[in-house]
């Protein structure tokens, strides 16, 4: 059967053919639109991270002297001074005239140790300590936990405990280098309330990731959203 040419078709057939063609074109246009929609870029967390980097909060490492504290309880007496008892090992770390602090993060001392008993109290089995206050007043009979510096870690690189990933393969930290995340192996010197003392692996000037490490992979592009500075926390029982 010979296919009739377009010219020979009657007008009605031409209209039907045009309608059919229009339908087919519409289907193809729609397919293209569906494909474009499926291929379009969406705003997602991953797309944002790919674009700007994964958000991290960092700390620029600096070798600083880190104080190590111990804590003990005292009861304020009627004369304004406070008395408490400490175990032998704590007593050995305290000294007369040593400043004491009222809470874990205070930088300002509230008084000083005025006396350290050298003889064991027979009732408590502990050593008496007396504290005189210069910058604090409390009701008689009230209790107070005081913090006293027992040691200073000289030129130490200390990071918060929770950012060190300790596993069977070793201890790791994340640091930022050239805008990228690097997982580095570190050697821990000591670990306590003041944080983790890093013996090897990082140096002064390194940007260590404090927050955001959970979502990082090696060489991920990162976006520094904040830098933390300041001394280590004043908590801890001492080495």
């Amino acid at each position, binding site marked *: 059967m010979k296919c009739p040419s377009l010219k020979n078709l009657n007008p009605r057939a031409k209209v039907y053919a045009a309608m059919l063609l229009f339908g087919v074109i*519409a289907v193809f246009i729609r397919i293209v639109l569906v494909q474009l929609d499926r291929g379009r870029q969406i705003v*997602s967390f991953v797309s944002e*991270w790919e674009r700007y980097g994964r*958000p991290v909060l960092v700390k620029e490492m600096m070798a600083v002297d880190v104080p190590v504290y111990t*804590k*003990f309880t005292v009861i304020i007496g009627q004369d304004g001074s406070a008395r408490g008892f400490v175990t032998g090992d704590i007593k050995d770390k305290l000294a007369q005239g040593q400043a004491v602090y009222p809470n874990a993060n205070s930088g300002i001392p509230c008084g000083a140790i005025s006396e350290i008993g050298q003889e064991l109290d027979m009732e*408590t089995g*502990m050593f008496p300590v007396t504290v005189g206050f210069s910058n604090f007043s409390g009701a008689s009979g009230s209790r107070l936990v005081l913090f006293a510096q027992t040691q200073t870690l000289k030129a130490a690189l200390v990071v918060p405990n929770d950012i060190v990933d300790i596993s069977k393969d070793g201890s790791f930290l994340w640091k930022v280098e050239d805008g990228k995340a690097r997982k580095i192996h570190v050697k821990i010197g000591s670990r306590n*309330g003041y944080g983790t003392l890093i013996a090897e692996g990082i140096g002064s000037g390194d940007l260590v990731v404090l927050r955001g490490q959970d979502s990082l992979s090696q060489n991920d592009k990162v976006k520094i959203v904040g830098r933390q500075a300041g001394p280590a926390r004043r908590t801890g029982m001492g080495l």
Partner: protein
Amino acid sequence: MIAYFVRHRITTIMFVLVFVVLGVYSYANLPIEKTPKMDFPIVTVSVTYPGATPLEVETLVVKKIEDVVAEISEIKKIKSQAYESLAFISIEFLIEADVNVKSIEVKDKVDAILNDLPDSIEKPIIEKYDPLIVPVMELVLSSDTLDGRDLYEYADKTLKTKISSIAGVAKVDVYGGKKRQVNVWLDPMLMKQHYISIGEVVNAMLLKNMNIPAGALEKGFNSLGARFTGEFESIDEIARMKLVSSDGSSCLLKDIATIEDSYKKIDSMARYNGREVVGLSINKSSDGNAVSIARDLRRRLDAFRAILPRGVNLDVATDTTTFIVDETHATIWNIFIGLLLTAAILYFFIGRWDIAFIACIIIPTSIISTLFPMWMSKFSINMLTLLAIASVLGTLISNAIVIIENVLVHLERSDDPEKAAIEGTQEVFVPIIAATGTNLVVFMPLSLMSGIVGVFMKSFGLTVVYATLFSLLASFALTPMLCAALLQPKKGEKRGTGKPNVILEALFAPLHWIRQGIDAGMEFLKKEYRHIFDLIFRYPKATIISVVLLFFGSLMLVPYLESDFSPKSDEDQFVINMVLPQGSTIERTLEACRLVEGYIEKIPEKKSYLTNIGENGVENAKITLDLVSLKDRKRADTEIMDELTKFIAAIPDVEVSYDRGMSAESGTGDVAIDLYGIDYDTMIGLSQQMKGLMEQSGYFKSVILSYKFPGDEVRLKPLQEKIAEYGLTAATVGTSFRSSVYGEDTNTYKEKGEEYKINIELNDAYAQEADDIKVISVLSRKGLIPLDELGTLVIDKTVPMIRHRDRVRVIHLDGFLGKSSMGVVSGVLDKRFKAMQFHEGYGYRYVGNAEHMDEATRELGKAFVLGVILTFMLLCALMNSLIAYPLAIMTTVATSLIGIILGLFFLGLSINIASMMGIVMLVGMVVNNAILMLDYTLIKMREGVPVKEALWIGATEKFRAIMMTSIAIILGVLPQLWSVMEAKRAMGGVMTGGMLASIVFTFILVPVVFWYLVRFEKRFVKH
């Protein structure tokens, strides 16, 4: 019977009115709900195991309970989660199971192994679970004058009682704020000084704080009750409790501890519009009416506010019924619009107001009457029943149209309207019964569907059946009677007899023009059809082949359709779910929430927002953001989410997912995957790879993995020899360790009839760091011994929450889509996951919506096949024919699929539960046009007209009726296409596409197929 109805008008009106009155009465009693009420056969077991790690919870609680409940029959799936201190086991039974019986069976099984479970667990809570129950309302209390503890006390002790008294309220949960508690903060240094350990303090308090009934003293006719009352009567009495140390010395509790009438350590928080509040979550009972509860509560809100303490505010934070009521009104409005459009189409086609008036009577009569059996069936007005009514709107009038159209033909031949009404109705009795019958039989399988989907379908299917039956009743009773009463034969022009009303004519002129236009259009189409009719019979084989090609061509478009179980819509609300790393404190979660809240404040479309922290652990938070109504804002909810995503993506360590709409099951991904395997570490690796692939696919806004990077924990590994040397047991050491760090709160303090817990634990200053554990001492036979002498302290990784599915460990992935749909994306992911090469014993399966979709597809597929078979059988029975008549008609079912696919394809709608329901429903509707045409063709054939000629007469004679009924059905569902709900739009798209295809192929394919089949019958089949 028809003659009786026509001749006894008052009887007929009263007969129909009985159902209308009952319908109106039922409306007042029908509850309004979002979804149909159903008893989900799910029983949950929650066991609190204070201080236990997820691993301990899994081994000592979850596995034991799973093993024992697995013996119960009719279990569909068991899902478990082992959290820190909590085991949660969910047992889903087959839908046929009686949830009350199963609940008792689970309880018996758990009770039987109680002795095998750890001693320190709290009593297991076994309850039926309804995943559809969401709080009806959330109220929030805020204050400038009361602190968090007093505010909580007021909410818990006063307001909660008042709200609970509202009919239908099952329970009121109070959250946020500070729960009153007596705290005993032990100072380890002072304890050492007084030679007392925490164990002694706990025991001393347990032995002191006693209230023991001692029986009764009897003398003669009187008896005197006796009781030992050693319970604490004041906080001071607790502080003055005497403690005796092992060396014989004594001291008071206050000498070694600080005793505070304070509050429980905060582990949950509620904030409304950035302000700390106490929240009250109001839950309805299973038979409660959410809308009436909300209405009652709002009515009494002012009374509650009037008695609030000064400076306290009470606000409605969320109200789920607002959307339900709005959506119900929107659907009712759509039904009204559909009714008007249907009446209008009748006027434009026939040109008579009286006929349009009949439509205006028949449709509401059928709908209102339907409410009566709905009430009797204990249905509610919900999304599905409303969808059923909206979808069936056009079919309700189609029978009446066929009758009216035929009565008009008879009226032209006769002057007696009564006679015309009776004869006209009787003549179309068979096609109407056939059309209605086909509509009804397809719903029988829907009502028989099993599974949870089946329960939902029952209310949809039966509502359609009720409405169709009432429309049949109205068609045979009311329509002929109204035709006889209202229709008068045209007796020439009456215009010349009176004065023409110029204004009226001018007003109605546009309507007249439209009518004329439609008339002209119909004539044009009829004329065109003559050519098409000639063409299809000139090339009958080519016609059939073309339609078959078109059918398969349309199937090729299916991959371009989206596919979802239940599409989500912009419901003026979405939830931001936030997860922080394991080991985060509530303060850290709050810090992240504050950042997001600060940004939300700047969103202009924001109406209010409610923040819940700690609902599922302190690392989790959710912010429910209420937006102004969609019509009052320029941006869709997804655009607002995009804006938020850009902001939240810059907050470190926060994983976020969004739940759109109020129906969403909190935190469940659009694409949910369970990864199973043998070795857990290998599974972790695989799950992280899968997460990466999902993220890289570009379809997901976020992907959340159930496995979390583990945090650190301090472990005390006991040295058994040392413990024995000191005359201790591991249990004593462990309990002291737990009491010191976690606390011990078994003691209670009573005041004004209320009980408050007494919690004993170490002073916070001595319970912050790992090394603080060294100050904890245990009393041994050699005196106080520091804990670190009895074991080794090591820092190790915690085990995050562990999931089980059907007693096997799984890692769950939740993908929240930013584009496309579950069906399409699953296909893409399968290709990507294939490259991962899972080892034997490892694999994954789609769960959540995918499981529901599979179940729905399976059940609706069965219903579709059964519907087709039943329709075919009905057609065979009605026409006493096996081949030509029923087979030719049934071709419309197949060809309607072309329209359905093209409808969904061009309108950008998805295949989902609603569109699949629409497809099944269409089986009964698309055949009606062919029934009308072939019925008349058969009449003509019996009169001796040749087949082709009879087909032409049948097609042209019924051309107008077919167009009218089909267009009425389309117009009835057309408003659904503009609904906010994607599901409704999909249903509208399916119905519109299917009906349009039915019109086209009834005129193009059915005549040719019928002609061939008649020839086949004549040649091969002997009747």
